Structures are given as C-alpha cells and as structure tokens.
C-alpha cells in the first residue's frame, strides 16, 4: 500500500542524524578551528597569477583587527555592516569580523547598480559599507547623500584612489591599523563582544533576489546556521574525509556560496580557493582540482558542453573510445543508483574505461579529485546528473532556499534518484500541503523572518512554524521529494491544461546550444519559448558550418542557427504530450551579462521580467 502523500517526512527516518556541535556560533567555530589548525592553510587567493595562501592564524589576526577597527569607529552590537564585493578573501574576513563583534553582516551583489545598493543599505540600515575597489566605491559616492546613516566606507583595494580624499572613506589597511591600536588597549575586546548577543538573534542578512518587487532581507541567526552545519556529516559529507580543497566563485551574498564557500569550510576545516575573477573559473578549477565542487546547474552544463564540443573535434578512434567508456560508465552508475553490486565483468570493464578514458576526461575538466559534486539553486536536468555519474563524479543535488538558511533536502550518496531533490536533512520536517501541493518545511534552520516586513513573514511562515516554500511538488514512498515547479510559474493554457514550464525548460537547457529558456503560454492557445543561446557553442557551430555572421544579433538571425534551435526544440517536444508542445521560439538578440536586469546574479533569466521586456516578441509569436 502506498503511503500518505501528505505525511510529514523527516531526515531521521533514513538514519540521517544531527550531531551535537561543540560551538554555538560561527565566531566560536572559527576560534575553535584556529586553535586546532593554527598554521595550516585556511584560504588562497590568486593574485597577479600567483596563489597567495593565508593560514588560520593569519586570518584570525586579520579578522580581529578588522573587528576591533570597526568597534573603534563605534560599531555597536546588533548594527549592520554591508559587504559590496566579488567573492574574495576580504569578503570572508569582513563577514567573520562583523559577526565576531556582534554585528550583523549583509551582502550586496557586486553586479548591483547604485540605485539597488542604495535600497539595500537603507533597508538594512547599514552603518558601515565594506567595498571591494574604486568601481564599487563609485556606486556609493553616487548615492552617498541618500545614505546619511552610513558612517564610514572601507575600501579593500585602493588602486586608483591615490588622489582621492574623503573623510567618509578609509582603506581596509587603515581600518586594520585602527584595530591593532584598539586591541592593544583592549586585548579582550573580541572575547567580550562575542557574548554580546544571543545566538537566536539575527546575525546575517541575506536579500532574496526578488524576481518581482523589491528584494526582501532574510534574517538569519547563528542558531539557523548551526542547525544547517549540524546535519552535514551524515548527509552531504557521508563517508568523506575532513579537510580537502574547495573553490569559491559564486556570489557570497547568495546563501549557497555563503554556506559552502564560507561557513561549511570552517566546520570541515577545508581550504577555500578564491578564483581570480568569474571568467577564470574553469582554468582555476583545473589548477585547484577541488575535492568538493559546488556549482549552479549552468556551470555543470557549461562543463558538459565543453567536453561535448571538444569531443566533436576529436578523431574517430577517440570518439569511439569515449562512447564506449561512457556507456560502461553509465551501466556502472546504474548499478550504483539501484544499489546493486555491479557484476564482475562490468567491474572489470569499468576499470578499463576509467583508466583509459574517463579519468582523462575528469582530469581535463579539473575534477579528478572530486569526491562530492553538488548542484543547487536551480533545477538540473536528470540527464546531466547521469552523465556525471557515468564519468564517475557523484553529482548530488541539494535543495534549499534563503528562507531555510540554505538547508533543505539532499540526495543521498547511495540511492540517488535523478529528477528528485532528495530527502529532508536531519532535524527537519517536510510535507506536501493538501490542495496546493506546495512543499512545506519546518525546522531550526527556518529564518527569523523578513526584515521590516512582518506581514510578508507571516504569509511565508505560518503560526505552526511551517515555511511555505513556494515550490510545488510531491513525495514518493521512499521519502524523496520532487519539485514540479515554482507555485507562481505554473502555466494554465487557454485550453485549461496545467503545464509546469521548468520541465520543458530544463530539457531545452540540456542542449549545448541553449543557455536558458523561458516558456510562456499562460492563458494562451499554445506554448512559446524565449531562448538565450550559448554564444560560444553556437559561434563554433556557425564557424564549423561556414555560416557567416558578424555580431551576436546577426548570429541569432541566421537561417541555420534558427534551424539548429528548431531541431533542439523538436527533440524536446518529442518527449512531451501533444498539449505541451512548444510551437514557436524567439532567440534573445542581446548577449546578457550579470549586470543586466534580465538575469539573476546566478545567471538565470527572470521569468516575469523577461516576459514583460520581450512582450512584443511574445505577441509576435501568437500572430
């Protein structure tokens, strides 16, 4: 008999357990690790082509200086400091420093425009702003008069600012100098300050990207963060040794990288490597060869398409070998998925495939040491997971959101079901709401609420503590959850058919030629789709097939590229029912970057915005 589809599912049902942790906050955890690991490397950052290392002791000294520096300027417990920087060492230093002196740390996306910076600073009532360089500083200067509550701005990198003098602005070095002086007078300062606040109070602010309306500031407490950390060793890190290398490149203002690039390495004692800049991720990946690699689906897709494009230039023998090895790899992965012991001949063939081909492919993409591959923040195509599994990279999916401090479900190391987001982590309860089929979650990782928005908070977290996630899905008898779509994204066509656009979109995105897609069709006679092409791969296609093009727009307009996408569309349509067929498509003609309003900082198209902005192109598809 099948189980109740609306029952409460917990992580403990599968033997996942929370472990008691010997600390109550991130600053406490940091000090503990400094004591244990001392002169071992804590982080690296590539600077002018050389990886510069920092030991735990060094970072500890820096963090105390920054913290004391802020206090000497008048930073009070519970006040907010905002960091406006790309993912870099200083980001983490400042985060630790602010938390260590009882402050609240908020992150602002470095791609945000001045206007957004103004909103986030005012809404969070930031009194200090820690900025990366002159570029970010200029954003502040543009809006400085609207931010009277900001007392000082601290700049990490003063290059290009030699002639700039403004009493509101000091360099990070100056701040550290102030901190050093202050520490001489009050050596116990950090210790005293660290107990200034209760771990149940807000410690971190994370603004949700807000595809509609203004971003909302999620208030996260130390208890929330610790709740997530306490469930790690039996789930994500099951059977994985402590330590290891990590590579951080996603924005640290996003809860996912904040956890995986900053907080979790503290717990696990692993080395974090910060990339040079967002464009060098793949190169840095090959240099670092991380043990755990976390990326959004877009990056996993990019790596996959690099391999497949690279393969198209290989000779016949290599192609055959790759095809064979991948086939063996997928058979082997299938056994793992079904938790069967692979038969001896398969084991032998797999060994051969690995030695001859698969290990080389993994080395080529810098993943030969990866023990845990993790994807999250957006849906991923099951086919992509199968491909990585066949290569021998266990790609696991995690689902969480800002409102759950990033914690949520996790696909288990063994018994992974592609297409599912996995099972609830330990300490959590999850269920599917009756009627709406919305996924609900309750646990110690659920945020305190949204800053300044008590009504929105009450709408999202109900009186019984259930967080309404906005994701619609179902749970199977084994306790695996599946997301079908975002609640507000579901399309009801004019014919009355309910369609979950993300299923179609994910299939489309699996094509190496398609980066992102937005399916439209609410109250319309049929479905259409807006597509963002993968520039590199489509350019290569055009060049290989002698299709003349000049700029990006002309590339999207060529007959052959239109045909190519049409073929990809037909491939996807073949997998779906007749009512779910996408009839027409439109290729976006501008190449979008993270600075553009159409994309979220994790480079996903914002559905509502894109639908509005390209309304004319959409209308044209219904004519």
């Amino acid at each position: 008999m099948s189980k109740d589809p609306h029952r409460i599912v917990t992580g403990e049902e599968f033997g996942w357990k929370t472990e008691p942790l010997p600390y109550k906050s991130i600053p406490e955890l940091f000090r503990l690790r400094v004591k244990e690991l001392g002169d071992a490397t804590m982080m690296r950052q590539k600077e002018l082509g050389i990886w510069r290392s920092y030991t735990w002791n060094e970072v500890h000294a820096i963090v105390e200086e920054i913290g004391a520096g802020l206090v000497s300027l008048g930073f009070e417990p519970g006040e907010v400091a905002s960091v406006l920087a790309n993912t870099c060492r200083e980001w983490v230093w400042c985060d630790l420093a602010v938390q260590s002196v009882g402050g609240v740390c908020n992150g602002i996306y470095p791609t945000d425009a001045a206007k957004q910076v103004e909103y986030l600073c005012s809404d969070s009532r930031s009194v200090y702003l820690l900025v990366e360089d002159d570029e970010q500083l200029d954003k502040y200067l543009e809006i400085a008069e609207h931010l009277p509550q900001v007392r000082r701005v601290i700049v990490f990198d003063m290059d290009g600012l030699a002639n700039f003098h403004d009493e509101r602005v000091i360099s990070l070095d100056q701040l550290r100098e102030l901190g050093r002086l202050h520490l001489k007078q009050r050596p116990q300062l950090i210790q005293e300050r660290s107990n200034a606040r209760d771990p149940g109070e807000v410690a971190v602010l994370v603004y949700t990207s807000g595809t509609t309306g203004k971003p909302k500031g999620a208030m996260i407490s130390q208890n929330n963060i610790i709740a997530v950390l306490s469930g790690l060793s039996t789930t994500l890190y099951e059977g994985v040794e402590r330590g290891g290398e990590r590579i951080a490149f996603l924005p640290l203002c996003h809860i996912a990288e904040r956890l995986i690039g900053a907080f979790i390495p503290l717990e696990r004692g692993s080395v974090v490597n910060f990339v040079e800049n967002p464009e060098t991720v793949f190169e840095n990946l090959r240099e670092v060869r991380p043990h755990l690699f976390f990326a959004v689906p877009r990056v996993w897709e990019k790596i996959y398409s690099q391999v497949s494009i690279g393969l198209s230039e290989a000779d016949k023998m290599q192609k055959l070998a790759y095809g064979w090895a991948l086939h063996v790899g997928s058979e082997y992965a299938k056994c793992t998925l079904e938790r069967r012991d692979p038969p001896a001949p398969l084991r032998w063939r797999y060994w051969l495939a690995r030695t001859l081909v698969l290990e080389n492919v993994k080395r080529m993409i810098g993943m030969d040491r990866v023990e845990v591959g993790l994807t999250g923040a957006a849906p991923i195509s099951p086919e992509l997971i199968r491909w990585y599994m066949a290569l021998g990279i266990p790609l696991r999916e995690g689902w969480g959101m800002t409102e759950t401090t990033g914690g949520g479900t996790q696909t288990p190391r063994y018994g992974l079901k592609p297409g599912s987001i996995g099972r609830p982590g330990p300490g959590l309860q999850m269920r599917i709401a009756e009627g709406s089929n919305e996924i609900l979650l309750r646990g110690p990782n659920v945020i305190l609420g949204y800053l300044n928005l008590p009504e929105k908070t009450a709408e999202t977290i109900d009186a019984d503590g259930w967080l309404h996630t906005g994701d619609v899905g179902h749970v199977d008898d084994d306790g695996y959850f599946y997301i079908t779509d975002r609640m507000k994204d579901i399309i009801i066509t004019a014919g009355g058919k309910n369609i979950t656009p993300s299923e179609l979109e994910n299939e489309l995105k699996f094509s190496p030629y398609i980066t992102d897609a937005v399916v439209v069709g609410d109250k319309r006679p049929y479905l259409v789709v807006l597509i963002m092409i993968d520039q590199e791969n489509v350019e290569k296609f055009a060049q290989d097939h002698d299709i003349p093009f000049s700029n990006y727009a002309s590339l999207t307009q060529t007959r052959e590229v239109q045909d190519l996408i049409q073929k990809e569309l037909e491939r996807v349509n073949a997998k779906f029912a007749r009512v779910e067929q996408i009839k027409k498509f439109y290729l976006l003609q501008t190449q979008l970057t993270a600075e553009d309003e159409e994309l979220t900082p994790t480079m996903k198209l914002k559905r509502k915005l894109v639908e509005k902005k390209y309304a004319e192109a959409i209308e044209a598809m219904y004519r």
Partner: protein
Amino acid sequence: MSVVGSGAGEVILALANVESAYGPIKAIRGVSLKVRRGEIATVLGSNGAGKSTILKTISGIIDPSRGTVTYKGENITGLDPSQIVRMGLSHVPEGREVFPLLSVRDNLLMGAYTRNDRDAVARDMETAYTYFPILKERAAQDAGLLSGGQQQMLAISRAMMAAPELMLLDEPSLGLSPKLTRDIFEIVVRINRERGTTMLLVEQNANMALNVADHGYVLESGRIVMDDSCAVLREAEDIKEFYLGKKDTGVRGERRWKKKKTWR
C-alpha cells in the same frame, strides 16, 4: 548581417567565416564582413585584434585556413597577390613600405607596374601630384629620404597608381602628427569621392576612422563584435568608452576601472 551603409551599392568584397593563423596561433577566428561599392568601410580594433591579418588575407599575402574571400563576385581565396592586384584591389601596407632606394617617381611607377595604358598612367601620376604636391617637389629624390608623413602619402599614391576599384588601407595614421593625419584622411576621402574608389580602412585612430567611414566593424580577439553604420557606432556606449576615450568619470571626477564590454 546589417544592410546599413550610406550610398550602399552592390557588395564588392565579402568575407565569409575567414580564419587565418600564424602557425598555431589563430589571428582571426571566423570573420564575416561585407564592403559595398563606393563606400568607406572601417575595421576598428585594438593591438593584436587581427585587423592587419584581415587585410593581408584579402590581398592574398596570407592564405586563410578556412572561409572564403569574394571580390566582385569571384572567389579570390588563396589567389596570388599579383593576380589580385590585377583585379583592381591594392593594399597600402602598415608602416608604408616604400622602396627607399628608388625615387619618388619610380615608386609611383612601380605602383603602375601592372598597367599598360601609358597615357592613363601619366594622368594618374598627375592626379597623385595634385593630391600631394610635395611628392611632385620631391619626385626625383630617393623615397627613403622622405619624412614619415610624406612616405605615407607616397604609399597611398602608389596604391592609387594601380587604378584600383578597392583600396585596403592599413593604419595610415600610424606614427603621424594629428595635423598630418587629418591631411591624409582628407585625401583618402577625396580619392573615394572623386575617383569612386571603395576603401577598406583599418585603424586604431577610431575617432578619425568613424568620422570618414560609412560603415564600421569592431574586431575583438579575432572576431567581429559590432557591425553597424558609423553614425550608430559613434553613439554606442562601448565605442565611446573603449575607442573614443569619452567616459563618464563618475562622482570622483576620475575613473580607472573599466566597464564590462557588452558591444551593444
């Protein structure tokens, strides 16, 4: 591809997916562009973008590893430079490359090497002298003794002596004073207007090039990223910032950091 371009006539030159390499280094990675009869087209790009390589590929000095060059409807990919010159396409190379030990007059005659119509050659020589009177004054002097600007004048005149329908100009402003640059560009425009010679101009001096040309392409690491009429290009944000040096200096009054190029 855009079809803008003032006075747009038939396409006289078309490159389709041209790739050229120096050994293992690909200098141009798939360039497609069109030049219409009677217009001045320009290719802008920074050092090493592949501008000169495009011209060398067109005039046959380099054979492309891929793609086709079509001139007056004929496929001239991989043809010998001497054949291409005979079809009415001359190349004014970067750094002038005049024959230093020949007189100015002989340099000009070298330009007319492929022609047999003596009277017409003599007429063209006179025209060259009216464009650049200084060359007439120095007609008997060795070309190596000319100043840089005069050598550039000579190089352009020499190319003109082949009576080309299409002239490729590789950075005529290189190493010249602003005044000389202006003078030379004035003549380039006159040659285009008076003789109807189509021009494909490669320049780092974007300001000059965008003012004289009708249609422009922007080349960035071997690929074309912008393709539009010069009137439009002059107003494009990225062109202003990266090529014309006009930028919004922000609140501080000085800005060092660069915006991200989007080429829109």
